């Protein structure tokens, strides 16, 4: 067999013209060489000076900008850049969730800031930014235009002309567009939430194409679901439908995490990897998700349960790559064996795409596009020990199950999920600790009170059979639930508070905002620990305690904050520092650390290294 394969080598007798190839390489890297002598160009000394000045400015400008302290409204990106595997970060604005690729061009729409960016995938530079006066959640390049799927006016498609930099055509489609739309067979295929399918040619001609919902492209086909039957059929470029069909089926041998049969009709998207078609069911931030592998050669359908909140998948380097919105993971799947590797990412990923030979992730918060180097450096998360799924909260544990030291419990702030700890959790478990992140499903902040959360954490630990000893790490307003949880528990042997929110902070900040004549609706939301509960809580005695505070110079005492709130900025800083001192005073064995260079509530991302070091040091102290 191998001899047959060797004989079939398609490159065995190919003649190679090295000079021609080299000229092509030189052309790509911008060297003005060719097989023929270059024409002599007239000397232009002014041009040399101008270009040199532009280059100097291009180098100097980012350096000058970096000297600016990070704004409280736009957190520093250092934490994300420092994450292993993140090769490049491009700030693109809030709400980035839609990315389209056209050759070397990446088109990114930041929905909340109404900005469409044109990015050179090779250099990572933003070539142009356009303002789009519409709420857009879909970007599809095709036919020389960029097609934008808008939710405005009951759903419409905008044709954006890159040459003029304007939207030159608006096409109503009588329903919210489904963002799996695709450019296929020289036309846009778009479906709406009414289950209607349309095609739009480059010149803007809209044609109804019957009932259908676009699921994606794979194996040279467009795949469209029939809303009536649930079947997903192939569509060829020659218009042939149904050459291949993934039939709707409810197969009781395929069950999701809750034990329910998986219904293929729920597949929200599909893609191709490793010669298989992969379908994603239950996609979305709050959902539990199952992947299905469909083998077109024999119709075999196999499930793969990775975890909740999957949200996008691509093929790259022969693997299927999937992102998890809830657990902040980039997951690599071997298409053949279905073996998975989990790589923690520093934030909620809104989408995943491939351009210039790399994976690109868009981080919904804080609005970044990041190039990921999957060839090296990615840190793999340890093996999942417990993934206890309850009705609304869960415990995700990693690390060796024969670990005998204190188990590290990660209790997140109210406004972010358990995935906030992804990088920290991976590193700690890889270093040999058992680590469990507690949190709630869904993309929105939970409305659980601190007391509810403390009870939920206790029940989750009971359910997983974890009795301690426990080292509890918390952040932001998670400190309130942690205090309630630790109250009277002997098995809590250490506590680390990251950027803890002082008791009464929200009321205080609201007063500062009102005093500055601003709208108090801008104050951060969140459940304060009420005074009565606070007053009833005791201290931690001699339990080892570390308090990590965010950088006050960056957060409160930077120019924009001081300019806006004046004395209120200094008062806010004092209030916050008093809060840190209060927490540090809860133990007779405590220390306080300031995390330099961190943005507002961004310590877990900006200085994950510091948190990891402090947890390890605390473990060492506890274990004596």
């Amino acid at each position, binding site marked *: 067999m*191998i001899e047959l394969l*060797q004989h079939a080598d398609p490159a065995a007798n190919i003649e190679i013209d090295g000079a021609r190839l080299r000229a092509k390489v030189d052309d790509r890297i911008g060297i003005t060489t060719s097989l023929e002598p270059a024409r002599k160009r007239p000397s232009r000394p002014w041009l040399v000076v101008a270009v040199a000045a532009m280059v100097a400015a291009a180098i100097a400008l980012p350096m000058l900008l970096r000297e600016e302290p990070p704004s409280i409204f736009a957190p520093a990106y250092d934490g994300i850049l420092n994450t292993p595997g993140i090769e490049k970060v491009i700030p693109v604005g809030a709400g980035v969730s839609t990315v389209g690729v056209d050759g070397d061009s990446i088109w990114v729409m930041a929905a909340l800031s109404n900005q469409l960016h044109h990015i050179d995938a090779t250099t990572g530079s933003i070539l142009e930014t356009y303002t789009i006066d519409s709420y857009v959640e879909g970007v599809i390049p095709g036919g020389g235009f960029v097609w934008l799927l808008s939710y405005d006016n009951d759903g419409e498609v905008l044709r954006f002309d890159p040459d003029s930099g304007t939207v030159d055509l608006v096409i109503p489609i009588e329903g919210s567009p489904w963002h799996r739309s695709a450019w296929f067979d020289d036309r846009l295929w778009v479906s709406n939430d009414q289950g209607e399918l349309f095609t739009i040619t480059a010149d803007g001609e809209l044609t109804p194409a019957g009932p259908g919902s676009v699921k994606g492209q794979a194996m040279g*086909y467009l795949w469209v679901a029939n809303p009536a039957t649930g079947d997903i059929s192939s569509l060829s470029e020659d218009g042939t439908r149904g050459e291949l069909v993934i039939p709707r089926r409810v197969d009781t041998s395929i069950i999701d995490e809750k034990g329910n049969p998986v219904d293929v009709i729920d597949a929200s998207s599909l893609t*191709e990897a490793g*010669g298989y078609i992969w379908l994603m069911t239950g996609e979305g931030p709050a959902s539990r998700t199952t992947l299905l592998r469909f083998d*077109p050669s024999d119709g075999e359908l196999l499930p793969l349960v990775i975890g909740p909140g999957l949200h996008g998948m691509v093929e790259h380097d*022969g693997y299927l790559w999937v992102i998890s919105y809830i657990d902040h993971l980039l997951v690599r799947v071997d298409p*053949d064996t279905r073996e998975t590797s989990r790589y923690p990412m520093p934030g909620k990923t809104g989408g995943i795409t491939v351009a*210039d030979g790399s994976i690109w992730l868009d981080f919904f918060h804080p609005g970044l596009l990041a190039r990921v180097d999957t060839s090296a450096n990615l840190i793999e998360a340890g093996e999942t020990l417990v993934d206890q799924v309850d009705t609304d909260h869960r415990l995700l544990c990693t690390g060796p199950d024969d670990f005998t030291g204190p188990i590290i419990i990660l209790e997140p702030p109210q406004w972010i999920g358990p995935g906030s700890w992804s990088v920290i959790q991976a590193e700690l478990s890889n270093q040999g600790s058992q680590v469990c992140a507690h949190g709630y499903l869904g993309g929105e902040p939970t409305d659980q009170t601190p007391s509810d959360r403390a009870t939920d954490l206790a029940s989750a630990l009971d359910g997983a059979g974890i009795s301690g000893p426990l080292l509890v790490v918390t952040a932001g307003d998670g400190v309130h639930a942690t205090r309630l949880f630790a109250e009277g528990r002997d098995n809590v042997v250490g506590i680390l508070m990251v950027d803890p929110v002082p008791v009464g902070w929200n009321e205080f900040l609201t007063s500062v905002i009102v005093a500055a004549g601003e709208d108090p609706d801008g104050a951060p939301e969140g459940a304060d620990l009420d005074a009565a509960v606070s007053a009833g809580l005791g201290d931690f005695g001699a339990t080892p305690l570390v308090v990590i505070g965010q950088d006050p110079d960056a957060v409160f005492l930077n120019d924009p904050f001081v300019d806006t709130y004046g004395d209120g900025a200094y008062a806010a800083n004092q209030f916050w520092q008093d809060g840190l001192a209060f927490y540090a005073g809860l133990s007779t064995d405590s220390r306080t650390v300031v995390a330099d260079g961190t943005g507002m509530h961004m310590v877990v991302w900006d200085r994950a290294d510091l948190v990891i070091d402090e947890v390890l040091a605390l473990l060492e102290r506890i274990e004596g």
Partner: protein
Amino acid sequence: MSTAGAREHVDISQRFDPLFDAHYQEIYRFCIRRLGVDDAEDATAEVFAVAWRRIDGMPSGVDDRAWLYGVAQRVVGNHYRSRRRRQGLLKRLLETRSTGEPDVVTGADVDARVLAALSSLSGSDQDLLRLTTWDGLTRSEIAHVLGIKENAVDQRIHRARMRLRDRYDRLGPEPRPVTTKEASA
């Protein structure tokens, strides 16, 4: 180009030129084997353009060849996404099954049959078989290119060969070799 830019260009060229001369032929063949002749030249140029841009980031401890193959693997992966070759392949596979055994099998038929079997495997199996059989990479180089552990390479190659045999057999009965008489008929 500024003086500093020219100096940088010379520095990169001193490292890049030997790299190109030593490896362009095998990288070009690597690309032909995965993309065909039509796209191989562009892909090879892209591989070396990436190498030019990232030569400073070439990891220490990894030999140039393995690093270049790693880049080539990613460039080819990118090309795959935009191609529809599999559509044609799938059709050919279906046609092969429905028409049954051909009356006369030539050497080219055998090659096409092996290639069809190869193409029906998963991407990772195809990579392993091509890298080891056609590109002649060592076990450690394959591990680097595919991002897998070195001690897993042999086992994966073994499994991939088994699956190739299986897919080859599933395409129909073993073709009998062509005779001189049949070929001239």
